[in-house]
């Protein structure tokens, strides 16, 4: 395998890492500024966030997810993830390198670990993807009464166009992480707590979860705008990006 192939593999692995709040890939958001492979097995990743003040817990989550995703590649022996230009970069970089948890990175400054926040954003990601898929299905002529009683298995069988198919893939991925261990016979569209939806409440429910999607989109827009402004003066910034 050539070095270029390896770098491509690293980028592909990073594509699966999302910003927990925006629910979009860190590569699409253009957070990654550099990927290097040394001696055939050592990977160095550099990333940058839209502002110096981005919340350290999110930065920490992303950095450790990047490390974990890239470590899964069979040829990788060592991963170094470096957050640049952030007020807590030193602490985060050291802790992610040492595989510490967030509490160890900021002794005395946190009150618990990040599993709760991870769960909260997982729920938002589920709602956001669910709303997009349901609206797409309704637009394509699927009956609302079918949606509230369909099982996951039936949803997977539903004929959909290309866009619908990719929305479904995203949703099913989130569904499995939310309803861990649930079978295909379970309802496809429930609240994040697993409560079934009635036909009468569907419209209000969709409006409610639309707010979650808009928040994420809003954050994404601000985020891209700020990052674009921030990157204006970095020569060669785009050279390592995928497209």
């Amino acid at each position, binding site marked *: 395998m050539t070095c270029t192939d390896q770098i491509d593999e690293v980028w592909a692995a990073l594509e699966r890492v999302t910003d927990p709040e925006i629910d979009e890939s860190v590569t699409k958001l253009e957070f990654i500024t550099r990927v290097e492979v040394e001696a055939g097995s050592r990977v160095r990743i550099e990333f940058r966030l839209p502002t110096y003040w981005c*919340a350290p817990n999110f930065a920490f989550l992303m950095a450790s997810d990047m490390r974990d995703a890239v470590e899964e590649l069979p040829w990788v022996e060592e991963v170094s993830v470096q957050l640049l230009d952030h007020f807590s970069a030193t602490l985060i970089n050291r802790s992610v390198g040492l595989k510490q948890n*967030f509490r160890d990175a900021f002794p005395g400054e*946190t009150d618990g670990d990040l599993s*709760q926040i991870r769960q909260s954003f997982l729920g938002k990601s589920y709602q956001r993807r669910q709303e997009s898929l349901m609206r797409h299905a309704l637009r394509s002529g699927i009956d609302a009464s079918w949606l509230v009683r369909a099982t996951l298995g039936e949803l997977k069988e539903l004929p959909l166009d290309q866009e619908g198919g990719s929305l479904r893939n995203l949703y099913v991925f989130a569904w499995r992480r939310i309803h861990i261990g649930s079978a295909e016979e379970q309802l496809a569209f429930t609240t994040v707590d697993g409560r079934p939806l009635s036909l009468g409440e569907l419209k209000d429910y969709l*409006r409610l979860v639309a707010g979650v999607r*808009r928040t994420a989109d*809003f954050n994404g*827009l601000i985020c891209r705008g700020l990052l674009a*402004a921030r990157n204006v003066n970095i020569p060669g910034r785009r050279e390592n990006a995928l497209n």
Partner: protein
Amino acid sequence: MFTTKSKEKIFIVDAHVHLWDGSTENQKNIHGKQFIDCFYDYHHLSPKEYIWPFEKYQKYTEADFEKDVFGDGYVDVAIFNPQYLGDFYYNGSSNVERNEKFRQKHPDRIIANGWWDPRNGEPGLEQLEKDVEKYKWRGVKLYTAEWKGESKGWKLSDPWAYRYLERSKELGIKNIHVHKGPTITPLNKDAFDVGDVDDAASAFPELNFIVEHVGLPRLSDFTFIAAQEKNVYAGLSVAIALIHSRPRYFTEIISELLFWLGSDRILFGSDYALWVPKWIIDKFIALELPEDVASEIGQQLTLETKRKILGENAARLYNIDIAERSQKLGLTIPTKSKASGERLVAA
């Protein structure tokens, strides 16, 4: 005063402006530099022709303010909502003395709010009393993400914050502007939480809580709280700056706010000098909700609603009689919106 094509007059209150000093001489440390750098990034949401050189952006003059806000910017009354940031800047990012001096130059056009920080404990409460006596504050701006020594922030629901809110109430401070942006501590909780506004707003129903930047980046959490607490208001600054680069998107945001809060609890703010008010107001007046967005919330963004957002709502919170004030400023008295009873709220 803004005059529409149909010759209607609209009284403008810009409920969020600054006279800041981010100059290199005023910076205490790297954070002072990073803070103003970050602001300058936000500034780039402006149309190209409105982008300032960085040096001017760091420290602009009182004359710049007069031209951009009162001159080109249509603004009749502007409200200072200062952020101190004493750990980053020698004289503060905003300085209440400087604001007050400027207010005295334009007593009918400037309202200079103050600030407090509950981490200043008992001496801070005494200081607050002296400040209110001296400056006659009717409102304060609270910056919960402000660093102070080891502390990287605080919450409105902290016991000391409650003592300060209680004292504010006694001293006649009615309007509590809270910056709810990306907070940074406690590192693993606050970052996605506007819940402390909920607690404080329930505990102090006599006070108005204006959530600046509508809880950005957590709009849905904010609307959820604001729908329940009638003394919670939406401060539009930052959100409204998207009207240029993402107009369609901004219509979704404003419709969301209209749906959950109604037209009486939304306040315009430019956040000058992050952005100048002129282009924001021009675009906001011209804005129409796309049909699908309007039908979803069952209402349009009418001129009536715009007039409330651009001035009448803030005027109500700060006891400004628009007709009287217009006369005093030598302006035509604008049309008044119909007195609205209960606003539209979600069933």
